């Protein structure tokens, strides 16, 4: 067959052509590949099954129940959902600005020779293990916040409900800040890639109209990239939701719903990390598994939305429309 040499696989006619061993090989590969789908489905089924006791006992009320009492066997997820949501949102807000700013620098402003090393450093931030961030947070960030930042915060914003109470190093604030550092590289790297795909002609058009440098970025580049940037933010959110170790080590591990960032809290992931290994079989373990199920469903939904956005941004650009 006359086929142009293109990268990648052969056209369909060439595959599975009945030469020796081919059907078997293909079948083996197919089985191996299908294992991924099986794993995902198995996970969802298994975790739903393991949480059946809790699902039966509490039903939908589990999602709004505020009491978590292993002794009296009353369990509710709300404090942990609250903790997860609040830490993730704070991290997303801060990491969004810092990450987008870094992305703008990498894609628009940095001279060519800086881009690669700086991108590498940003990737390093993402590669550092969560538990290392946790240790650093315990010994450096917590004490630093306590001596240098919280007094100032309390002095200026102490009247608001967000900065009430004593600060003991481990708190929602500390966990959120470390979470910011961990989410930031994802937002920065993906946003940078998206911004780099904005065509030069768009910038030229804005420059030709007499725009300042920032006006070019904010009026031509960022709007064009906005779908992809949104995808980057949501991917960052997905990462924040599932982040476990650093949060467990820094959030103070008290499941409570409080507006004050200086107080301790708990997230879905951190309560699992702390309690699961010693959980009593039965309702407690079942409730913990249900927490894991809730976390799984939220993460999957957020990640799916994010990937859809990033994909749609790429597609629309290819078709010349946004």
């Amino acid at each position, binding site marked *: 067959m006359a086929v142009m040499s293109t990268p990648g696989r052969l056209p369909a006619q060439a*595959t599975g052509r009945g*030469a020796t061993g081919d059907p078997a090989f293909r079948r083996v590969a197919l089985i191996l590949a299908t*294992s*991924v789908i099986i794993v995902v489905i198995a996970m969802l089924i298994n975790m739903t099954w393991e949480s059946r006791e809790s699902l039966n006992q509490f039903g939908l009320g589990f999602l709004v129940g505020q009491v978590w009492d292993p002794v009296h066997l009353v369990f509710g997820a709300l404090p942990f959902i609250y903790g997860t949501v609040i830490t993730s949102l704070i991290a997303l807000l801060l990491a969004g600005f810092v990450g987008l700013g870094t992305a703008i620098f990498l894609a628009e402003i940095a001279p060519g020779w800086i881009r690669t090393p700086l991108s590498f450093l940003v990737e390093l931030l993402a*590669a550092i293990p969560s*538990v290392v961030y946790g*240790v650093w947070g315990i010994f450096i960030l917590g004490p630093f916040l306590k001596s240098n930042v919280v007094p100032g915060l309390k002095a200026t914003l102490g009247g608001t409900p967000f900065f009430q109470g004593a600060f003991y190093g481990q708190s929602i604030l500390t966990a959120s800040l470390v979470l910011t550092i961990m989410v930031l590289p994802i937002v920065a790297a993906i946003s940078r890639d998206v911004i780099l795909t904005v065509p030069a002609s768009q910038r030229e058009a804005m420059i030709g109209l007499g725009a300042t440098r920032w006006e070019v970025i904010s009026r031509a580049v960022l709007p064009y990239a906005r779908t992809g940037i949104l995808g980057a933010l949501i991917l960052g959110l997905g990462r924040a939701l599932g982040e476990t170790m650093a949060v467990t080590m820094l959030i103070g591990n008290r499941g409570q719903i409080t507006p004050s960032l200086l107080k301790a809290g708990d997230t879905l*992931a951190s309560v699992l990390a702390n309690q699961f290994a010693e959980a009593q079989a039965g309702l407690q373990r079942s409730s913990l598994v249900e927490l894991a199920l809730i976390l799984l469903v939220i*993460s999957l939904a957020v990640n799916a939305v994010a990937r859809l956005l990033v994909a749609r941004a790429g597609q629309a650009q290819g078709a010349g429309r946004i």
Partner: protein
Amino acid sequence: MAIQAQPLTEGKPIRDLRRGPANFQTRRVRSNVMLGLVYVAVAATLIPLLAVLTWVFVQGLPALNVDFFTKLPGPADDPHQGVANSIVGTVQLLGIASLISVPLGVGAGIYIAEFGGSRYNTLLRFATDVLSGVPSITIGVFVYALVVLPMRSFSMLAGGIALALVMLPILIRTTEEMLRLVPGAVREAALALGAPMWKTIMRYALPAALPGIVTGGLLAMARAAGETAPLLFTALGNNQWNTGITQPVDALTLKVFFYAGQPYEIWRRESWGGAVVLTLMILITSILARLATRRRAGR
């Protein structure tokens, strides 16, 4: 006469090409301020990186002595102890994880890249993306229910399976991408010489993609070595040498986690030592991966 363009705003005549109309200075200042904030953002990204890395090295390196690497954990008053079993445990866990995830991952990647119909491939890629987005603690819960409960014991096997699930999506994606980069001409030449499909892939296409796949595999392993959450209730941890694949095993990340909050100096130092070992491992792997990719790009 030429039509005079009207000034758009009040203020200076429009032919001032140095200072511009009244609001131009505002625009210029705003642009500079925003660009300044961009620089602040970059600093805000780099300062934490610097802070974490320097602290980890400053605190962790002094903890690395011979004892650290050769002795077992001991009571809080024993100055001569180490985390040897944790380091070995990490290696053992990675070994099991790789044994499971490499065949599965590379096989799946081969299927998607070489065989799959576009519909099924979309489903496979979707499942891979889903798996990579699962929080690692959830993977731990899943493997607990799947392996630990039936076995009635925490084990190295369970921990290895959990880490394999972490590595799997990375391996699948890397294998597929690297195989796609191999030009079709390689496969065509092999087929033209009469080679069967499986040989074409295994003997010709795969080896060409192998350097990239190995790089991806190393990165996956480094990532798995840094994971703690999936091991919390699968491998569980251990202060002794592991006695078998069906028994609990310790990992370096678990040690860092458990010792970090301890009030005893010696244990805290072990924790920092573990942290610096993990960080060094990540640093080295990342740098090697970058160099390898650059060399392949034909620098």
